[in-house]
């Protein structure tokens, strides 16, 4: 998930374009706008990036980190189920690993097997740059998923989430909800502070709030993406702030703990926005009987899109719905806000 800052600016400038053309979500950009109706399984919007007709058989090698977190697990599921949909795609999936050396070894094995395209979600983007370069030199196009390599030479196409945009959209959503309320206060339950992405989310959130002079952020505590830490830190925040109007929680996994703490404290006098897009969060939003009113996506469906892109690369096709013949060099997904109004559409993408 972390994405180097120098590249963030690059994507930020590009964001203008994506904002305009892809407001309905990354899926729409890739699908050629035929239909947006989700099916129940698999999770992602199942419209393919390129033409759906079976084409030349493609072997896609997929290497990801160990799925020790709900979101990463959803990444694997999305990739697998998407590949299964295509009769012309064979997916070579490796054992997930958080060990850089082990992951390098796995990718080298895939290169030696001469897969047609590689999809790589590195445990550590910087550390795996070399093996990305190696694959590209071996004429195996690499789709770099989310955690970005050091240099664009190491991938043919990058697709990933937008941490800054997540914060930005969360801030805008809360800002609009609290519009007209004077001296409104918000608090932030951040993720693991050691990760750059947490800082990016916080920066986006703060930047958005600058547009709303009536709102002041009064407290921020960092949890650790775990239920346990979410509960602990939220309980402290609730004790520290006897009254506030809105809360942004970076991550729906730790949100389970945060909601537990809110319930235990018997508090319901504020609005809560989540992050990432877990199924439990979608369900709570749909039921609308608690503080959680919305969540900002960091969609694991990007893995399904990555499979689509890889298939298109393998078959030499472009993206339908775009004028170019080629797949774009990078695609930043839009962090859509899911609330009661549109939650049904996203329900199937929610991860456990």
């Amino acid at each position, binding site marked *: 998930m972390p994405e180097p800052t120098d590249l963030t600016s690059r994507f930020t400038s590009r964001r203008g374009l994506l904002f305009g053309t892809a407001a309905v979500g990354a899926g729409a950009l890739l699908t050629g706008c035929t239909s947006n109706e989700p099916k129940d399984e698999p999770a992602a919007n199942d419209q393919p990036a390129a033409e759906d007709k079976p084409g030349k058989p493609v072997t896609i090698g997929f290497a990801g980190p160990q799925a020790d977190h709900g979101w990463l697990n959803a990444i694997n599921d999305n990739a697998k189920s998407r590949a299964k949909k295509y009769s012309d795609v064979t997916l070579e999936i490796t054992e997930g690993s958080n060990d850089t050396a082990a992951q390098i070894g796995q990718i080298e094995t895939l290169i030696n097997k001469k897969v047609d395209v590689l999809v790589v979600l590195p445990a550590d983007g910087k550390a795996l740059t070399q093996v990305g370069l190696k694959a590209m030199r071996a004429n195996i196009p690499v789709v770099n998923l989310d955690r970005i390599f050091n240099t664009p030479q190491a991938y043919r196409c990058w697709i990933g989430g937008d941490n800054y945009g997540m914060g930005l959209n969360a801030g805008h959503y809360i800002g609009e909800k609290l519009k007209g309320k004077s001296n409104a206060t918000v608090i932030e339950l951040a993720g693991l502070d050691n990760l750059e992405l947490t800082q990016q989310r916080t920066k986006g959130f703060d930047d958005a709030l600058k547009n709303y002079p009536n709102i002041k952020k009064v407290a921020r505590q960092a949890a650790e993406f775990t239920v*346990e830490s979410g*509960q602990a830190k939220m*309980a*402290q925040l609730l004790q520290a702030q006897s009254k506030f109007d809105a809360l942004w929680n970076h991550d729906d996994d730790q949100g389970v*703990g945060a909601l537990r703490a809110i319930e235990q404290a018997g508090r319901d006098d504020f609005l809560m926005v989540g992050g990432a897009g877990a199924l439990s969060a979608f369900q709570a939003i749909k039921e609308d009987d608690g503080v959680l009113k919305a969540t900002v996506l960091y969609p694991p469906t990007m893995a399904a899109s990555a499979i689509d892109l890889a298939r298109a690369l393998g078959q030499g096709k472009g993206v339908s719905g775009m004028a170019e013949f080629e797949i774009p060099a990078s695609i930043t997904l839009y962090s859509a806000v899911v609330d009661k109004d549109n939650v049904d559409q996203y329900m199937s993408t929610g991860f456990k």
Partner: protein
Amino acid sequence: MTQHASPPRDSTGKVPSAGAPPVWRGLMARADVRTLSLLGVLAALIVIGGITKPEEFLDTRNLQLVLTQASVIGVVTVGMTFVIISGGIDLSVGAIVALASVWATTVATQEYGFAGILFTAVVVGVGCGLVNGMLIAYGAMVPFIATLAMLASARGLALQITDGKTQIVTIPSVLDLGERDAYVLGIPPLVMVFAVVTVIGWLVLNRTTFGRRTVAVGGNAEAARLAGIDVRRQRLYLYLLSGLCCGIAAFLLIILSGSGQNTNGNLYELDAIAAAIIGGTLLTGGRGTIVGSVLGVLIFTTITNIFALNNLQSDVQQIAKGAIIVAAVLVQRRTASTT
């Protein structure tokens, strides 16, 4: 320079300054001083909290909050204290809490309701402790290595069981225990469990043959063996005890967070060891108190609370925690060098 405690019959006279044994009363007084100094630190923290955030800190709800947050790690620390007093170490406590918490919250287990969750958490904890104990006592493995291996395997198994997914608890009777309605006379059930474990731990350490043997094994394993104590069986029981505490802690964590997750218990081993050391337990074994360890836990929890109430960020919290550990160990070494 002190005069020898027992007037020697010969001309021993003054003892050299290095390793000078003070009179025994001095030692007793120092044991009290240690507890008193911990209480002093806690009192100072309460003053700091009261000054910086009078309304939020000095509040019944905040007291309930601090004690609740201390309960889970507190129960683990009681078990850890026994292990360290015996001269061992248990690095696997956090992983055992994680494994017990996810095993106890699988869909299959939840079908058996409250009892199923409690039973599974305790059995998994004790089972892991049994493996640790067998490896250390009868497999002659170094505790550091054996429990490090358990740490890795238990975390791996927890991940395998969950696939990294958070397991939500749906049993109302379990969840209700974490709600305010369940407080008895304002005391949260979790805090009651913590208190009971503390009292039992104190009694076992100070009033039973088990406690005596623990101290004997930690103080001098060879002497304990030659005195006729079954050192290996005692070691086995100690790791079982630590596993049991982890199982109980896992159950408390399930109540508190309403879920089981493979990332639970993150770095509990370090927190528990740090609390025990601050409480005056010697890492080399042979000496330690339950009261000291519990005060250590409360000091850490109170610091976290004060920092959060003052909206200080995690980097500052971590730095402060490290500084406190170093300070406590330096003080301890100073006391140790004069004994």
